[in-house]
């Protein structure tokens, strides 16, 4: 299938944006094909902001999809809750806005790292991590984003051999990313 002419990225913070951006480059997207929604001004309120604007983002995605191939990537940490909790929050945001939940065929991608994006970045770099520990203060995370995106590309290919150490929330991302194809 042809790739989307534009990918809208709704990321919780800059690291979410960076991982998604570098992953999209692997899929041959260029800066011009990617549009990042503005980040909120305060640190620590990113997940609230993503949930607040999610319904509008889905609505805008559908409007444009009717005339041009578009994708929407939403990246938000599960934090101490479960991935399913975020999905149900998305569902209720859509309900309140009177917007239908995504269909199987829609290129609306939910990336929900548990506990946070740093867990995925470290995991994708071969570190043994769990979904309970908070790795957000690890100092070397920023340099690991590019190699993490390269591994994400490999692991998300159909029939890729994913190591057993891969955390469950990251495994859930692979079928999500195939929505871009």
């Amino acid at each position, binding site marked *: 299938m042809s790739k989307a002419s534009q990918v809208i990225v709704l990321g919780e913070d800059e690291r979410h944006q960076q991982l998604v951006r570098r992953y999209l480059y692997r899929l041959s997207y260029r*800066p011009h094909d990617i549009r990042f929604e503005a980040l*909120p*001004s*305060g640190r620590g309120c990113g997940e*609230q902001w993503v949930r*607040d604007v999610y319904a509008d983002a889905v609505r805008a995605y559908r409007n444009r999809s009717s005339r041009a191939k578009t994708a929407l990537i939403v990246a938000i940490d599960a934090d101490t809750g479960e991935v399913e909790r975020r999905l149900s929050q998305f569902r209720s945001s859509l309900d309140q806005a009177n917007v239908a939940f995504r269909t199987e065929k829609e290129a609306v991608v939910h990336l929900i790292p548990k506990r946070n994006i740093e867990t995925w970045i470290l995991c994708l770099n071969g570190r043994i991590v769990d979904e309970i520990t908070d790795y957000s203060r690890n100092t070397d995370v920023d340099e690991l984003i590019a190699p993490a995106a390269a591994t994400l590309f490999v692991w998300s290919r159909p029939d890729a051999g994913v190591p057993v150490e891969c955390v469950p929330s990251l495994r859930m991302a692979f079928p999500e990313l195939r929505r871009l194809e």
Partner: protein
Amino acid sequence: MLTRVYIDNFGCFVNFEHKPARKQLVLGRNGCGKSSYMDTLLLLRQLVTKGDVLDDFSILSKRTRWLNQSRQTFEIEAELEEGRYCYRLVVDPWGEPARPRVVSETVHLNDQPIFEFQLATVHLYNDEYEQRAAYESDWHRSALATIMPRGELQKLSGFKRWLGGIYCFRINPFTMGARSEGEDLNPRVDLLNIASWYRHLLQADPKQNIALLNSLREVMDDFSYLKLDPAGENIRLLAAEFDRGEDANAVKFYLNQLSDGQRCLICLYTILHFVLAKGSTVIIDEPENFISLREIQPWLTAVADTVEGGKGQVLLISHHPEIINQWAPKNGVQFVRDRIGAVRVEPFRGDSDSCLPPAEFIARGWESE
């Protein structure tokens, strides 16, 4: 990379200290010293690389109005391959009528002196930190400017080369023409000489030109390539060629025939590929001027890609919401000035409760409350 700038008794800078990051957005209200900061760096670069007399820069008249202090101090620190460099220049008025003189000018590497100019005498140290020469020099100009690169002064020469390679831009498309009468090694701040600078870059680094042309093909519809048309002996005219499809001839526009925005796009991507990607420190004042909203974020993303890839250092000075919303939360610092007093630097602190976009937060004036 540039790690610290200290300015005292110069314009609105009193005991001012700024520690730039590899990628930083400088924010602040009008008149808070953002552009003056870049001008000060330009002045120091000019002093040290060109060796002009201090009088040419009207340094004394730029002493802080409300201070009763004669000495002016400038410091620049950089983390380079050889270690941590610290350049310090102290100037005061001397004689009648008063002229600016260098009280002291020093360069330290990892806290050891490699160059000292005090009381009109230069002390030079070799790369092993051994004093090699002492001689008198004119204290109305930088003595560092007179040092020529040579074998035993590689560390000092390396710093001087780095300082001379700090690029500051305030792009002004109105001044740009297509005509080039030769190669210019250095760009002017406003890029008036883009044609001659590009002529040099093309010769010096043709590989980067491929990257530049590819970028321009993405940002300008139907753009094909840049060319330097001969227009007399040694004269070239910088032109952009656009394709009109298979059945039509390409159409050529000289630089001055392009729109202001197109000229700025050529400049921004030239800076990206020929300067930043080569590892230099770049400061750009209001890079978004004349650029369409659609083009700002892709350029910003390309800049971030380059810097995050370990190449170069970039400081952007901007009021534009598009840039503020992307860079302020993690990479923003604001210059703050209380009334008409001195400037200080603070990290940008957003509003953690309301989740307003940073630009809206600033537009409401809440960042300084």
